[in-house]
């Protein structure tokens, strides 16, 4: 099983290396090199998922390297969570590769682009499958650098170059506490292996566990674009759309939530971390939903919506609903990838990315209209679609923690935070989704769309259809306890029988394993949904041309700029660093180097001074000799 996982990770890496090395010389082979190895790894991941079914943890590994203290092991740890998420990642990656084969067919740098996508997929699979935190860190940062190169794919334009650097630096800033957290956990548990850390944490929680998990939240915030470090994701939209679909929707950004799920027992044992996570999630949910409502660019709307949906996952994790959060991760991966790919086609059709210039596109490409509608429906949480079930599962878990949280459950405050923010966000999500839906597909085109270069290539449409299936149907797997919860296994990866949840043999209360939507939260969510959608529809009906976001009034400007968090960062972090840099250079050139030159100058002047005493006058020489003799005689006499 683990060898299949290792192979699944290795194949795309091999493709990437070959692509980067020989891509330029055999462009034709690039397309095949991009898709075939990834297809093989999809089959492998599905095989691993199926063979694992609801079994326990299987882990094999060899020692990667001695370090002088704790050794680092290269091991594959396959449990329910990693098998399923790996399958999702591989599938979405394959679809994106197929989509971009057509989307980027005229781009001269397609071979390096495809190679980087394969490298990214390999890195993501490594993060998912690995059993050692340090190796996870390696995959973690390789993903970061792939996203840097892919965001900067159009390096001809300044905005792409700036966004790429910003994305990498913000995630790198998040990775600093992440690395220290890994060290804290590793040293605390006596090994870097995830298994050892998960088993090593005492039930009552430990100092090192809390500290380690709190520090790792930095990395989670950075990678999953949560509140303190969320500004890089909307700017990352300057990259090609398939990149946004793969990296900034389904996989990389979900890695943050995945790591928390992977080390869940450690997080469960430290309440402080869960409270902080809950606060972070709540803030992100509401604010980014609001920002999404005020955006004018199609992809930025979807970007902000991704941030808010990710907050759902982290909120679910904070509120004790690990299985619910993973369920939402799966469904979100599917419908958000669908939305982004569809957006790619929409922009292709409309010739521009700005919503205010679009309109009435539903007649131009009916397939896109219906798939996008399904996607938006799932996003909003319209009952039959997958989004509804996963969102309700998260709210259900939060409600259970808030109302009758048991001993092992997270503190109640996390439950309340997640519920309130979740329901509120449901309304806002409905608002911006409906606004998007109406302004793009209904009414008249506000700007004459350019004459398209012929029908949208079938390779771009086919993945949309494929993705619509899980968007619609995936909700079902949450209904029965023996399906998704059983597949995922318990938080520490161990399998469990159907009755174990009931008689309390597992880590958490039975309610957390039941993902079926609860009545109370469902009704509230649907009500808010109807309210939000209705209000926007009414606004739109009054004046189809105008932008429903005008209702925000003065709040519109700051909301569009993400409450000026960027300017805050610029003032607090970037400018002081430049000042410090200039000051340091001044100190280096004048002060430290100054001493060196002063020493040289001193020697020079001393030489000049003494040399002047050699003025050729014998009397002076004699005086010098006898003065020396007097001084010497006196010192000798005194000392004697």
């Amino acid at each position, binding site marked *: 099983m683990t060898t299949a996982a290792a192979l699944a990770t290795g194949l795309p890496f091999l493709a990437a290396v070959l692509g980067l090395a020989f891509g330029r010389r055999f462009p034709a082979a690039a397309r095949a090199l991009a898709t075939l190895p990834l297809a093989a790894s999809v089959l492998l991941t599905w095989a691993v998922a199926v063979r694992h079914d609801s079994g326990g943890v299987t882990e094999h590994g060899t020692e990667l390297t001695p370090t002088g203290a704790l050794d680092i092991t290269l091991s594959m740890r396959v449990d329910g969570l990693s098998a399923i998420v790996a399958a999702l990642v591989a599938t979405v990656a394959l679809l994106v590769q197929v989509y971009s084969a057509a989307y980027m067919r005229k781009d001269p740098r397609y071979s390096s682009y495809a190679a980087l996508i394969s490298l990214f997929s390999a890195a993501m699979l490594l993060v998912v499958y690995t059993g050692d935190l340090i190796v996870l860190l390696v995959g973690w940062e390789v993903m970061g650098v792939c996203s840097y190169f892919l965001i900067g794919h159009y390096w001809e334009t300044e905005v792409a170059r700036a966004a790429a650097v910003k994305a990498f630096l913000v995630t790198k800033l998040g990775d600093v506490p992440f690395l220290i957290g890994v060290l804290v956990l590793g040293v605390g548990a006596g090994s870097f292996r995830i298994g050892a850390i998960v088993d090593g944490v005492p039930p009552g929680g430990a100092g090192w566990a809390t500290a380690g998990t709190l520090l790792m939240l930095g990395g989670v915030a950075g990678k999953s674009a949560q509140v303190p470090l969320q500004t890089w994701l909307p700017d990352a939209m300057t990259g090609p759309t398939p990149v946004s679909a793969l990296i900034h929707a389904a996989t990389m950004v979900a890695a943050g939530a995945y790591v928390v799920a992977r080390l869940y027992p450690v997080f469960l044992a430290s309440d402080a971390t869960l409270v902080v996570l809950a606060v972070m999630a709540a803030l992100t949910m509401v604010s980014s939903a609001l920002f999404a409502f005020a955006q004018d660019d199609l992809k930025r709307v979807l970007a902000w919506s991704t941030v808010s949906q990710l907050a759902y996952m982290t909120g679910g994790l904070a509120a004790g609903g690990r299985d619910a959060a993973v369920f939402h991760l799966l469904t979100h991966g599917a419908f958000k990838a669908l939305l982004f790919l569809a957006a790619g086609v929409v922009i292709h059709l409309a010739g521009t990315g700005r919503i205010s210039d679009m309109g009435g596109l539903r007649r131009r490409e009916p397939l896109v209209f219906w798939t996008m509608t399904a996607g938006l429906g799932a996003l909003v949480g319209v009952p039959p679609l997958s989004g509804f079930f996963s969102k309700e599962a998260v709210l259900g878990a939060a409600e259970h923690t808030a109302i009758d949280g048991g001993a092992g459950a997270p503190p109640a405050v996390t439950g309340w935070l997640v519920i309130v923010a979740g329901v509120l966000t449901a309304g806002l999500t409905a608002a911006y989704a409906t606004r998007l839906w109406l302004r793009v597909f209904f009414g008249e085109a506000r700007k004459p769309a350019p004459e398209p270069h012929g029908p949208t290539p079938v390779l771009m449409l086919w993945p949309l259809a494929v993705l619509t299936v899980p968007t619609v149907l995936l909700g079902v797997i949450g209904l029965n306890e023996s399906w998704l919860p059983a597949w995922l296994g318990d938080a520490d990866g161990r399998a469990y029988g159907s009755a174990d949840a009931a008689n309390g043999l597992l880590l958490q209360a039975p309610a957390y394993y039941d993902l079926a939507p609860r009545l109370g939260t469902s009704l509230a969510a649907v009500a808010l949904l109807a309210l939000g959608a209705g209000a926007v529809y009414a606004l739109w009906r009054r004046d189809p041309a105008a932008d429903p976001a005008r209702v925000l009034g003065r709040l519109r400007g700051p909301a569009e700029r993400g409450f000026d968090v960027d300017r805050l960062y610029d003032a607090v972090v970037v400018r002081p660093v430049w000042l410090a840099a200039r000051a340091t250079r001044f100190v280096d050139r004048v002060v430290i180097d100054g001493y060196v030159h002063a020493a040289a100058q001193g*020697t*020079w002047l*001393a*030489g*000049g001074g*003494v*040399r002047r*005493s*050699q003025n*050729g006058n*014998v009397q*002076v*020489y*004699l005086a*010098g*000799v*006898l*003065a*020396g*003799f007097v001084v*010497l*005689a006196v*010192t*000798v*006499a005194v*000392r*004697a």
Partner: protein
Amino acid sequence: MNPVPPTGGSVLAAAHGPLSLVQDIDWAAIAPPLAVASAALVVLLADLFLSGPRKVWLAWLSLAGLATALGLLLPLRGGGRATFCAPADPATGGPPACSYVVSDLTLVLQLVLIGSAAVVVLLSMPMTAPRPWADESGSDRAVPGGEYHFLLLASVAGAVTLAAARDLVTLVVALETLSLPAFALVGLRRDARGGEAALKYFLLSVAATAVLLFGVSLLYGATGAVHLDRIAAALTTLDPKLDTVAATGAGLVLVGFAFKVAAVPFHFWLPDTYRGAPVPVAAYLSVVSKTAGFAGLLLVAGIGLRPYAHVWGPALAVLAALTMTVGNVVAVRVATGSGDAVRLLAWSSIAQSGYVLVPFGTAAGDGADLADRLPASVAYLAVYAVMNLGAFAVVATVGRDRPTGVVGDYRGLVRVRPWLALAMAFFLLCLAGLPPGLMGLFAKVAVFQSVVAGGTGWLAVVMAVNVVVALYYYLVWTALLFQPPVPGPPPVAGDGEAAGTLGSGGTLRVPAPFAVAIGLAFGLGVVLSVAPQIVLRVLTVPGLLG
């Protein structure tokens, strides 16, 4: 071979009767200085009979004399031979004190002195012989061969005797025999500069000698003895009243020798004298005269004034630090200012004598552990002789065809005379103490080792800084050797001589004796670099200061 007291010149039985005036002399011991002195006389006489081109024989004669002296050193290996011994004074009951003792130290110093003198003779051949190497142009105008060689050999005889002297009288006489001919040698060219240099050197040297003698008299008065070992014995049991007198005497004696080795502040004569004197004489002063000065210092401080180590130790430490620093610092200005080659070598030799003084600075207490500190100076002296003579030889060679004598003349020498340039680079890097000049490096490590073991940390740090300052001007010169010629017109020579820089293709002749001298120095340098144990053996010879 045979232990003290010598079997040969056995002291007449001191037991019976009054002092017997007839003394038995160990001729083998005093053979080297005798050989050199007789060679001097032979050269003086030969000068009467040889005339015209055959005057070149004078140089060969003096070389032969020096060679025999070297040969005569061989049987004395093993050391420990003494002669001219005063009988044990019945009153004090001390051991017989001898005035002329050939110990290991003496042998090493005599070897260095005679060897260096031979090289100086080689260097002065073109200058002293009318033809075929003589040339009227350039700074080395002809010098009367006969007088030159006589004076040189006389001076060397004085130096060799000084190395073996064990009592103040012999020391003073030997010192004067060394100095007086040197004054004449400096002024032998009878030109304005030579005269001025000779006068300055004479006046300062005489004043210093007067001070030295005054010190000797005070020391004699205080201790009642003239022989160094007796002085040492007397100093340990001196009654306090005479303490200040003895201390002042000691100080004054050290001033005399400090002048001889040109320690700062007694260095003023050196740059002017070297610049005024012909280059071979400058080489002679910088090596033989300085080594003899250090020999005197070693004997007086090491043996005579050993109980007063706590007095002169710190004084010499300060002197050493001053000498190194002043020498290096001014040399830096000379290298980048006027760039005069001989003057630069002069200041460099002042700095080098600073390094030799450093082990003296570590003396403290009653000088018990001096025996394993001072040999570092001896080792450094030997290495210094080789590298300094090499450098002077090259300067003499280049100086003949480039009378301006500026460091700039050496630009691009590697293209005109590759081997000459490589030899010069080797000597300069040896003086700096940097590989590939391993010989210099080992000598400096030996000195560093003695000063660190001696515990005077501050002196070690000062020397470390000085090594760095010194590297600057040695490297400026070495870099010039390998630099491409400066494009554009050669700098206009001051007095219009056709002395363009080397780069402009000025011819550079290397006469045979110069080539031999440089080859000898370079060869010895390489041998000592590869196998330093030959010279460093001195460090671990037991009782070197016996």
